């Protein structure tokens, strides 16, 4: 499916990161990151394994705390936010994990209901059922409603993981390696789903990947993370129109091999 051109509102950043630094023991993973995610756009963050891409979105979602710098998400500074405010903010952010992180002991239905019943006080059984059916329909997996996560394929688990975040109608989506470990056809289906989510739910997304097909199909803007900093940012063509020996192998491996 061809990606529709999305006009992002460049005056309205939903996420704004300035001078972000993060180290683990002596190893500095992020060394002064500046980033803006605008309303309605898909921003792809590319980089090698271990370059700190996942660390970046874990800081944005409040799972990790930054060592230095400002991280503003929907008007809240993550570093100085109170626990209760962070809980409320997280409901507005969807996080799709690399390995889907479905709750093994619950059926698909229970997985989807879990965040909903705990965040929407006074919701009725009828409303819960409707919400579950709607998101399952959105990811095309209505038939799996009573299955356990162990009975699903890798692609289905990814879709259910995305559905679980969509059930709270998030304004921002964070995808951690959405196509990792999937076959090419399923990758394309997941890429289409990411675009569909952007259009249907009007989300702004950060997509962490090292899969250039995913980057090309889903990204309105690409940011290349190298040596703990964003070295190149722009459209897919702009980022890869370079002879930089740290960037070129990425393109060559994905499209020439």
């Amino acid at each position: 499916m061809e990606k529709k051109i999305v006009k992002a509102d460049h005056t309205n950043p939903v996420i704004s990161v300035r001078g972000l630094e993060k180290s683990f023991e002596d190893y500095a993973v992020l060394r002064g990151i500046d980033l803006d995610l605008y309303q309605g756009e898909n921003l792809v963050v590319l980089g090698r394994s271990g370059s700190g891409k996942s660390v970046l979105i874990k800081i944005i979602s409040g799972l990790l705390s930054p060592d230095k710098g400002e991280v503003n998400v929907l008007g809240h500074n993550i570093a100085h936010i109170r626990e209760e405010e962070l809980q409320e903010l997280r409901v507005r952010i969807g996080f799709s994990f690399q390995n889907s992180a479905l709750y093994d002991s619950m059926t698909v239905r229970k997985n989807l209901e879990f965040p909903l019943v705990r965040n929407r006080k006074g919701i009725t059984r009828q409303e819960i059922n409707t919400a579950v059916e709607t998101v399952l329909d959105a990811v095309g997996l209505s038939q799996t409603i009573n299955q356990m996560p162990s009975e699903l394929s890798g692609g289905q688990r990814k879709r259910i993981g995305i559905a679980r975040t969509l059930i709270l109608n998030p304004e921002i989506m964070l995808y951690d390696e959405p196509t990792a470990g999937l076959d090419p056809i399923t990758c394309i289906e997941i890429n289409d789903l990411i675009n569909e989510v952007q259009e249907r739910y009007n989300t702004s997304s950060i997509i962490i990947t090292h899969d250039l097909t995913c980057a090309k199909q889903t990204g309105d803007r690409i940011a290349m993370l190298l040596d703990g900093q964003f070295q190149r940012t722009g459209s897919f063509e702009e980022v890869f129109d370079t002879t930089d020996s740290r960037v070129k192998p990425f393109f060559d491996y994905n499209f020439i091999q």
Partner: protein
Amino acid sequence: MDTAESTTPAVVKKRSKLRQSITDFFISLYRINQFILRFFREAFMPPFEFKEIMKQCFEVGVRSFTLITVTGFIVGVIFTKQSRPSLSQFGAQSWLPSLVSIAIMRALAPLVTALIASGKVGSSIGAELGSMRVTEQIDAMEVSGTKPFKFLVCTRVIATTLTIPILATYTGFIAIVGGFLNVNQNEGTTWSTFIQEVFDPLTFTDFVASLVKSIVFGFTIGIVGCYQGFNSSKGTEGVGKAANGAVVTAMFLVFIEEIIIVQITSWFR
């Protein structure tokens, strides 16, 4: 006075390792303390996860039921059998029911239940939460605006604290039945006489002490299992370590608590 030997690199390295171990020990102690405080802060604040608590109570009971039945029965039979020769020397076999009941109610029932639950329930909680940590399921709960600590830790600790005393009572009953079968076979004592002699020497303090002990053991097993699992390091190795750590630490603490509670109880007698 420092000798030349005390400043050699090997000695310096050994000292720094020891210093690090002591520091690590106190850091762990601080973290465990914080974990327990967090439990009390969150467990009694709404919303309450009653459904999950009931589910966990059922899990704890079911997981240990068979093993506790078999072990409790064997403990009763063996204890009675082994005590008989000593009492026979004084012609005091008629004291067997009293001896069995005191030993079982005061010590064996809570202790045997706690040790079995440490192995079955503690390891299972440690492994389950450890694997949830490794596969980012706990992170997934956190980012979806829910409270994983309340849902996973509080429910399990409450479940073990409530269920272990029930299981300990059951163990006590089964062990007494085991003791009765042995006494009945050898001395021909009837059930009603046996039960009367079982309850005769027991005091209110014995029942309260036994109950308090079981509650403390249950809380310990739950909190240790949850702490190990919830804070397990990444990787499958971490899951194994969490399960193992849950069993070893819980068993060790159960023995320490047993000594302390026995000492405190003796002051009330």
